[in-house]
């Protein structure tokens, strides 16, 4: 059990370090702001319909044994 719990925890430290360093890093954005017109198109929105996505995710969680990992901090439902 400890092994599985630590999966998210193991990712935290390097990610926090990355966040802390991001302010003083010299990494140049390889996609410039003026090159992001396609990414700003509504068809590229990863979640343009949050109410609908939350609902259908709820249905899958009720009908299957798996949960989470799909963009929300959430998991399942044991609906009969």
């Amino acid at each position, binding site marked *: 059990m400890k092994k*599985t719990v630590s999966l998210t925890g193991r990712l935290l430290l390097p990610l926090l370090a990355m966040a802390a360093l991001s302010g003083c890093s010299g990494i140049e954005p390889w996609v410039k702001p003026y090159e992001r017109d396609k990414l700003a198109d509504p068809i590229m929105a990863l979640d343009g319909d949050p109410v609908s996505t939350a609902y259908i995710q709820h249905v899958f*969680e009720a009908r299957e044994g798996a949960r989470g990992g799909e963009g929300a901090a959430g998991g399942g439902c044991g609906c009969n």
Partner: protein
Amino acid sequence: MIRRGLTFATLLLAFGVVHAGVLPDDRADVLYHLYDGGGVTIDGPSVLVRKKAGKSLSFVGNYYVDMVSSASIDVITTASPYTEERKQWSLGMDYLHGNTTMRVNYTSSVESDFDGETVSFSVSQDMFGDLTTLTLSYALGDDLVRMSTDTTFEEPLDRQIYGVGITQILTKNLISSLNVETVTEEGYLNNPYRSVRYFDAATGGYDFERELYPNTRTSNAVGLRMRYFLPYRAAVEGEYRFFTDTWDIEGHTVSLSYIHPWKDFTFTGKLRYHDQTGAHFYRDLFPGPQATNFRGRDKELSPLTSYTFKLQAAYEFLNDDGNDTFGFIKRAKVTASLNMLSVDYHDFSDLTAQEVIGNEPLYQLDANIFQFYFSFFY
């Protein structure tokens, strides 16, 4: 009892896929949902309103109702059909400071035999010229499981959810999202009404007894999504999720979507495939009464494969193009979607077939999931 995990999907409304340096758009959604399959009909509304207050704050509220009429395979083999209603509401706030967004959300769900509350927090940080958004999230759930047939029955269920997510712009045509999530639960995890089936040596047939689950469960899920802008104005998205838990369920989920705009319409097609192993304490037929320490016959814990085909059409019927022609509303659209879900259970017999024990056919579920909603942006 609809129960358990009231806020899991709702947390998507709280966290979603985010960009830390920008508050979400002001919007209102009014949705009608209908699930029809396997003798179960669930429908109801969901209303979401989101509004900024100044440049740093955004508030969101959601009200959701499930009206259930159930004569499912579980119900008709061991109990009586029932109707029930679940009401859920949530309130949340986003606070933007520089490239950091902090969120807090509270959700409450109430039904006749189940109460649930969840508080969630998340922090998102834009990095590397806004190409990367890192999100850390935590949620704490506190549920109370009751029984309509026994007023003295009351059991707690606690839940903690840890999430880490990265949204990454990879090229000027490609965006990706990686999410890792750990859920730990402790308390009353089984359904107080559900039974397991065991072989009755005295009659040569079978009988039922109350199911008994472990009182802890920890799961991990890792999901990766990639969306690509095609050489013409359309997009494809691929998604994969790996799931594993301490009940020995291991799942793989794959989906592929195609999004195609045409004039004021946007059409979406999606294929989704899910395959999972069963829980270690799951049996379709136990060899005798109290045969194992833990016992379950919840078909969702059985090994199964599901297939979903989605068709969706959205029509933008109002767009002021920045001219304030329609008062405070800038844009509005109406969307209809149909998900056709088919589930093949690999170890769950259809007892309604009335076959000789051991010869029952495996159960198969087909369901249609319909959504119709209006979205207003202001």
